[in-house]
């Protein structure tokens, strides 16, 4: 532990975690939906709606933070000469993993970052999600331990890694120029938003910091399991929670309880299973939804496919009404989570490297 | 000979087993107040009775009972459980100390209901004051939302039903409440005392429209039809009985005469609520003001 704290990189990780906590609370104060200052899955659902991938008129907005995460990461990677095009490891399973990541998040109502923002705001209905995430990460690690491996990404001579950042440059253009085919909600949660430039700036800053530090929620948990308190990511993760809690208390948004929480439901089992799905898949593909965006920004085409899958999933969960709401989790949302768990288990079977005695 | 002996012993054993089978469950009776006819009452409540039997491991038998005979037949010990309107419940609570189990939910007000006084649209009768000197038709006398509530409403509005209207009548036979509505609709009477629920159901069924009648007044809401039980029935059974009713959901089914029927839908009920006896105090006050049983004074 002391060794970890002596390393300047640990402090950078802690800075990233702290800023994520501050911005998570601050963006909600500035206008983002309550407890959703930062939520990758919610932002993706909003953005998918803006691009016409679903027709829920209350969930259509091209979230600047999301664009900022990817482009911030790209700029940092290019600036520090870390941008490198790589990919080619199990592309289709990664694409589908992206879809199921969003299924799990939408059933729980939020990504792992939002899970902790919800807990920091006193939303105890997120507790089963926390347990689910921890169990999911543990299961994913067990999978890796028994030889499950999606394969190594190879450096690609072509510039395949540029395509995801370029896609997000295009989205930035859409956000700023607002062409007619991009939809922006005038009511509902997507109409609640922090000022564009501030949100974009925060996204760029957090994207850049996350690229430098490899900050990841499930990564923090994974490293805690593997390395204990020596894990640098865990310290960043801890600071994120502490700062988010302090922010909630200071901003007056801390309202502890199970009932009347914003964007939450009481289907505890499905909150647990939804986050279990997210945790397990995240470990298998090497990072939570936020980390996938950052990796895609630094030229990882495999992560880029996960991002495309997440965008597709975000459209599907709204179009097929799989997402959880305050009224609970719809039947087909539950079925989708079970399909996701089956997908995870099938991948364990298919990608396990067996040693023949 | 040997064969005959085996047959005899076998038959004896079988009949003993059969006796034991029927004797396994206690038999109890539920008296159901007739709304329109015995046939309708039995059709409505037999699936529910079968469901209660299955859930509580008691052989319940449904007995249709006319409203005016109810307190007397209950006092005579003809049935242990009762399903009556709320006024008959209040009467039997006063006279026989019956236990309150659960209140039926139906229509806009759930476990509550109300009585309305209506006139035909275009009749010129627009307020309660206008009904003085007019011909009025009520529902049956022991109907809380077809008679008592309106009688009380009139008294509280300064209209004495015995003195201030030309005359009033009560229909006979079945479907009394609908007869009351049609009596005004077809100009046989000027004013009618109708349960709010019947107005609601007739409108939903398309028999009348909201524009057909002027609603001159409506009573406060009070508890609707009620399940009760004799005070000496096992308290544990009463508790379970109440719980089964309160837990009944729309989706619950029962196998009855070879069919799988939705219990609540068969009985035309939306559900049950466990009210407390004090919820019936409003009705008691009405009965006292209207000099009606169980507080009638001569």
């Amino acid at each position, binding site marked *: 532990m002391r060794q970890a704290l002596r390393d300047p990189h640990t402090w950078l990780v802690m800075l990233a975690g702290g800023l994520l906590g501050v911005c998570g609370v601050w963006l909600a104060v500035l206008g983002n939906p309550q407890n959703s200052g930062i939520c990758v899955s919610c932002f993706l*659902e909003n953005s998918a709606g803006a691009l016409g991938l679903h027709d829920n008129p209350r*969930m259509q907005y091209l979230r600047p933070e999301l664009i900022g995460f990817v482009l911030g990461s790209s700029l940092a990677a290019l600036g520090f000469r870390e941008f490198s095009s790589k990919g080619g490891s199990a592309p289709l399973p990664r694409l589908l993993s992206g879809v199921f990541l969003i299924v799990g998040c939408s059933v729980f109502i939020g990504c792992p970052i939002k899970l902790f923002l919800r807990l920091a705001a006193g939303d105890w209905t997120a507790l089963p999600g926390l347990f689910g995430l921890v169990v999911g990460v543990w299961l994913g690690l067990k999978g890796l331990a028994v030889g499950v491996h999606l394969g190594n990404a190879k450096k690609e001579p072509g510039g395949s890694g540029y395509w995801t950042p370029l896609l997000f440059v295009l989205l930035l253009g859409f956000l700023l120029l607002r*062409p007619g085919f991009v939809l922006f909600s005038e009511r*509902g949660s997507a109409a609640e938003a922090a000022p564009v430039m501030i949100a974009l700036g925060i996204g760029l800053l957090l994207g850049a910091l996350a690229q430098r530090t490899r900050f990841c929620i499930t990564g923090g948990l994974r490293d805690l399991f593997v390395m204990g308190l020596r894990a640098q990511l865990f310290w960043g993760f801890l600071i994120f929670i502490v700062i988010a809690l302090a922010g909630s208390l200071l901003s007056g948004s801390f309202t502890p309880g199970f009932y*009347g929480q914003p*964007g939450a439901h009481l289907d505890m089992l499905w909150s647990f299973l939804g986050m279990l799905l997210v945790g397990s898949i995240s470990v298998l593909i090497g990072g939570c939804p936020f980390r996938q965006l950052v990796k895609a920004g630094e030229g990882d085409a495999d992560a880029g496919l996960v991002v495309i899958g997440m965008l597709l999933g975000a459209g599907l969960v709204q179009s097929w009404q799989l*997402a959880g709401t*305050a009224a609970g989790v719809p039947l087909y949302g539950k079925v989708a989570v079970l399909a996701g768990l089956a997908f995870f288990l099938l991948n364990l079977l298919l990608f396990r490297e067996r040693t023949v005695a | 000979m040997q064969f005959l002996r085996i047959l005899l012993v076998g038959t004896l054993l079988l009949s003993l087993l059969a006796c034991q089978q029927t004797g396994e469950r206690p038999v109890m009776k539920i008296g159901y107040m007739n709304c329109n006819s015995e046939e309708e009452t039995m059709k409505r409540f037999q699936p529910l009775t079968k469901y209660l039997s299955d859930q509580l491991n008691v052989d319940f038998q449904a007995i249709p009972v006319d409203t005016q005979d109810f307190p007397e037949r209950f006092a005579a010990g003809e049935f242990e459980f009762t399903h009556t309107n709320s006024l008959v419940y209040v009467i039997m609570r006063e006279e026989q100390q019956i236990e309150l189990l659960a209140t039926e939910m139906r229509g806009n*007000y759930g476990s509550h209901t109300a009585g309305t006084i209506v006139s035909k649209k275009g009749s010129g009768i627009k307020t309660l004051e206008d009904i003085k000197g007019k011909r009025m038709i009520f529902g049956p006398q022991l109907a809380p939302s077809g008679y008592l509530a309106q009688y009380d409403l009139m008294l509280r509005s300064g209209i004495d039903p015995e003195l201030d209207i030309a005359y009033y009548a009560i229909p006979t036979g079945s479907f009394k409440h609908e007869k009351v509505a049609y009596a005004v609709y077809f100009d046989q009477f000027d004013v009618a005392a109708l349960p709010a629920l019947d107005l*609601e159901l007739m409108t939903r069924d398309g028999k009348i429209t909201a524009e057909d009648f002027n609603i001159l007044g409506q009573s406060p809401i009070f508890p609707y039809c009620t399940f009760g039980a004799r005070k000496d029935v096992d308290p544990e059974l009463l508790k379970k009985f109440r719980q089964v009713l309160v837990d009944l959901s729309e989706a619950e089914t029962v196998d009855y005469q070879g069919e799988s029927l939705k219990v609540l839908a068969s009985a035309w009920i939306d559900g049950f609520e466990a009210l407390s006896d004090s919820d019936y105090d409003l009705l008691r006050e009405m009965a006292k003001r209207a000099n009606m049983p169980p507080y009638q004074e001569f």
Partner: protein
Amino acid sequence: MLKDRIDILLGVLLLICAAAAVALLTGQGSQASQSNMAVDKALERDIAYQAKVSFLERLYAPVSELQQAEKLETALLKLDELSRHYPDEAHGELLRGEILLQMQAVPKAIEHLARAVRMSGDYVDQNSPLSRRSMINQLVDVQLPKLKAAATQQTTGRLQATLKDLYYLQGRLAGGCE
């Protein structure tokens, strides 16, 4: 990057494509068609929503008039009549809840209001012309403490269901992303 003639040729073609796209986007004719498309899409959505709002207002106008005239029983009957043609319609549920609340039939009112909000979030949305946010807010503020207190005295399925509906409304008022 541009190492031979083929590279140069491809680069030039790329530049031509980019220039053509810019010309298309900035040219006058295309500007008109682009703005038409933009207006069409936004307009279509606005028209559809406004049409829905005005249809609901027109459909339920007799109910609202009766409600304003405090003829609440007749207003309920009118709703029953309309529900024959439009059963389980969100705005009908909302009006039924409002009327029952005016009649002090609180548990049933809460049931219908929660059902309406489940079907359409517009009723708790500040920006919607159909918004009833302040009424629902007031209902939650007044009834929640009462029902919580009642639940400590006795626990019935009905009371729990009403409390659950109130918590749902409270959650929707609190916001969140859904």
